[in-house]
């Protein structure tokens, strides 16, 4: 008996509290700058795609909504031939961003992706790729990696010594 009255009291008390719900979309809620929403693919400071198609994002994705295929550019660098995210499956967990070794994938605070046709929730690379570096202005994977590219010889990456002359007897 007492418990029931108490319950009713608790419920009725809420008649006088303010509503948490906002009148979206007329009224926009506050979103932190690091809010996890729609994913973008960024470019490195030189304007090239950062994604090297390593497949780590796809592997870590708990709903398996990322699919891509690696290809090689003429200069020897890797890039995704296609990169597809099925946002109708995406749960915005941000694990792909965490796994990305090149800072290519970054989550933006945009979550407004409603569509009448579910097919439109499938984003290809051209929909994902932005013309910018996102949160990491300086990073370029190929300046760190030991791989030779058309613009970077062996030994020219960060912290690399000149290529070894195997015919030399010097220490």
């Amino acid at each position, binding site marked *: 008996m007492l418990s029931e009255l108490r319950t009713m009291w608790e419920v009725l008390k809420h008649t006088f509290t303010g509503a948490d719900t906002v009148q979206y979309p007329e009224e926009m809620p506050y979103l932190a700058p690091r809010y996890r929403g729609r994913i973008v693919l960024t470019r490195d400071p030189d304007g090239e795609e950062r994604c090297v198609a*390593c497949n780590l994002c796809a592997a870590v994705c708990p709903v*398996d909504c990322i699919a891509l295929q690696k290809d090689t550019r003429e200069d020897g660098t890797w890039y995704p031939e296609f990169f*597809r995210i099925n946002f109708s499956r995406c749960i915005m967990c941000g694990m792909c961003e965490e796994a990305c070794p090149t800072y290519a994938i970054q989550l933006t605070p945009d979550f407004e992706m409603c569509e009448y046709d579910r097919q439109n929730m*499938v984003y290809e690379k051209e929909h994902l790729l932005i013309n910018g570096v996102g949160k990491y202005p300086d990073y370029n994977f190929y300046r760190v990696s030991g791989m030779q590219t058309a613009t970077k010889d062996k030994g020219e990456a960060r912290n690399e010594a000149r290529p070894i002359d195997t015919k030399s007897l010097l220490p």
Partner: protein
Amino acid sequence: MPTIFIDGQELQVKDGENVLEACLNAGLDLPYFCWHPAMGSIGSCRQCALVQYQNEDDSRGRIIMGCMTPVTEGARFSLQGDKAKEFREAVVESLMLNHPHDCPVCAEGGECHLQDMTVMVGHSQRRYTGQKNTYRNQYLGPLIHHEMNRCITCYRCERYYKDYAGGKDLGAQASHDHLYFGRHEEGVLESEFSGNLVEVCPTGVFTDKPFLKQYSRKWDLQSAPSICTGCAVGCNIAPGERYGKLKRVHNRYNHEVNGYFLCDRGRFGSGYVNSDARLDYAGIKKPDDSFMAVHQQQALETAAGWIKGKKVAAIGSPRASLEANYLLREMVGAKNFAAGFSDTEAPLMSAVALILKTTKAQIPSIKKIEAADAILVLGEDVTNTAPRVALALRQSVRNKSFELAAQMGLPQWQDAAVRNLAQDQRSPMIIVSAMDTKLDDVASECISLAPDQIADLTVAIVAALANQASGNNEQANQIAQILQSAKNPLIVTGSSMLNLGIIDGAVAIAEALCTDDTSAMLSVCVPESNSIGAALLRSGSDDAIGLTLSDLVNNAPDVLLVMENDLERRLSPDEMHKLMGKGTKVISMDMLENPTLGASDMVLPAASYAESQGSLVNMEGRAQRYFPVFEPTAERLPSWQWLLKLGAITGHKALSKLNHFDEVVAACANSQAEFTDLARAAPDNSFRDRGLKIPRQTHRYSGRTAMNAGVSVHEPQQPHDTESPLAYSMEGLNRDQPSSLTPFVWSPGWNSNQALQKFQAEVDGPLKGGTAGQHLVVSSTMGYTAISSLSKGASQQVKSTAVKMQPHQWQLVPVHRVHGSDELSVNTDEIAELAGCAFVALGAVVAEKLAVTDGDGVVLGCGDTQLSLEVKVLRRVAKNCVGYSAGYKETLALQPATLVTLTKDAKWQRREPQLIASDRTIPDPIILDPNIAKGGSAHV
């Protein structure tokens, strides 16, 4: 069995093994790099460190290397102790000092032994801030990609390539931390087994170049247990698929067949599966000789209409599965069925089938070949016809060194010590062949004889073995003596010379060596993946021998069914024209466009080995099952399904009762005594492990909800496999099933192929799930009666022409090439590049006489035909013999033992020398004027 203690745990271990092996056998995770079960220990990487204690009271202990320490009774070790753990972590840290930041763009990533070991030892923070060493890469050919920066100097590549596979052009260079593994200069790796570097290298120095072009991570590949169709050895492979494309082929361990290694034809020769020349739809020929694409049903109905009430004959194929061949034979009846061998090949294959069924000699598995201590190779260039056997022969000549090591009390796994001890001493291997073979470098004696003379030599050897030698053939006496003094003599021969005399002679020698207590081994190489299966089918039917191709040519049926067989390779152009002529309706099924399909009235698209299932009988009579890796696309169907559908629509009595693959297997097994055990080659469709089928996909398989989303966001159901015990799914366990169902190897913490040791019952032993495959043919050991002794016609004919040879005539001898001679693999771009063009092989004397050198051209005259071919000069060639590239399109018309004339081709233009890497890595310059060719005849 000694007892050792590891961290206080008592372990019963095998006598003579090392501590690393003991740990792995006990299921303990001890990191290692340089040790390999097939190559033993050299202790170069310092990774498998443990602490050994003098006795129970010793608390300090000392660091030892597990792979270099033999187990001794009562020895005490610590694997988990701080000192050992710290040491192992420090070793990885030092290996990582110069390791580049490459993992995201490294083809080894995700199946990298270095990654696994780094995680295993717990090294996670980089402390070294200095500069990393870098190296220039080399161009190593179209198959292997080189990225030297990633090297951890474990020496595995050099030890595999030079010591194990006998390669000469890859080795360690420079010293201290400048160590470099590569060739003396850039160029194509010469070994036929170079592909194994990909699996042997614990990191990403050597990676699979064709795979790199269409790369997917290991966890994303859908794999199935499969069998290589490159030759008759029947190596077990694990092909991987993604997005409907066959991406790569990896080795699948089979203790008795291929072990850890494949040849390059097997590893890289499957690119044809993705070829644009694959047939997608059935087609019916229109009057203008073009094909009209039709639906499956329409094609089947049309075919049924053609077949009804007509005289139908069929040609099977030695490269199609046993089940498909069986169904084809059932469909038309054994009287109207030809197994698909050429007329020269058919008697040889019957003989080989008979040998397997009756010989007194032992037909060895490859594992047993490695145990031979005296080898006689007769007429076969094994490296090019059955490559994996040649790799085994290279190991068997080492038995001498193991014998010496045993005398010194050295264990076999002490690799460097054993090799040092033996130096150049090897078990005897005598090679009798018409020309150079790739095994000459490890042979104790090479004898160059024309094929017929080889057959004569075998007769002399048999006589010498029976002590009937009159002493006139010193060579034969010597060989007989060597073979007689061996414990496990092995005779290797094959059908590549298309000479029955050699095969008969080889059997006679092997059987003469069999005494009451010893049994000689006899290995007969045959050309195609199911040659033995087709030969058994042919000879096993009640109607004796079935048809030959010439029977069909001379007596054309109304309707001819051709299954997976390019008849251009078996018939002369005239015969081909006659067989495919207007009177006969020809229905062909095959995968790739070929002249037979072009000449047919109806073509049906067949699935490749990667999209279908079936059994192949290898050269030792072992039936092995391959399973589909992915579903056939478009309207392709496996041949056996085409035949079942055709049987159903025509209302065929036997065929219309069969619906499933297992029923076909059962019917096939019942049809012939030899096939009784066929169903035991692999579990049937009803097999379940804990209620589930075996998954083809790894548990990390990614992108399931996005792969097809580009087409439709509505995810399709996973395809159901109603025919095999495997599922197109990641659900289920890949752990305790029979080995014939192991699609890939993975174990927690072991992402690389080194996870294999978790699947082996013991280190280097058979798999936990038993050895895959089933011996179909068990010899009656009655002794083989040569077919040629019944009908001497063929071989005598050759001899009589040999007598008539003119001074400017030479006898043709087929020369097989691992890349180029095989029908299917050469449709892979990389293999075609290595195969080069057709050639004539000359001895130095003949070349000098004709004034030609390597790369020049000669005109080969053979009757009316004149062929202009490139010259290859060989080191040794039998007198009066010239070789021709067998299986190459340009030389298909040539027949062995025919007499030819040779003249220098004055108009011949030499091919451009092969491009080297510096030309390849720099993109072609952009040429503005299209009229200016880029230079070199290849570009014109």
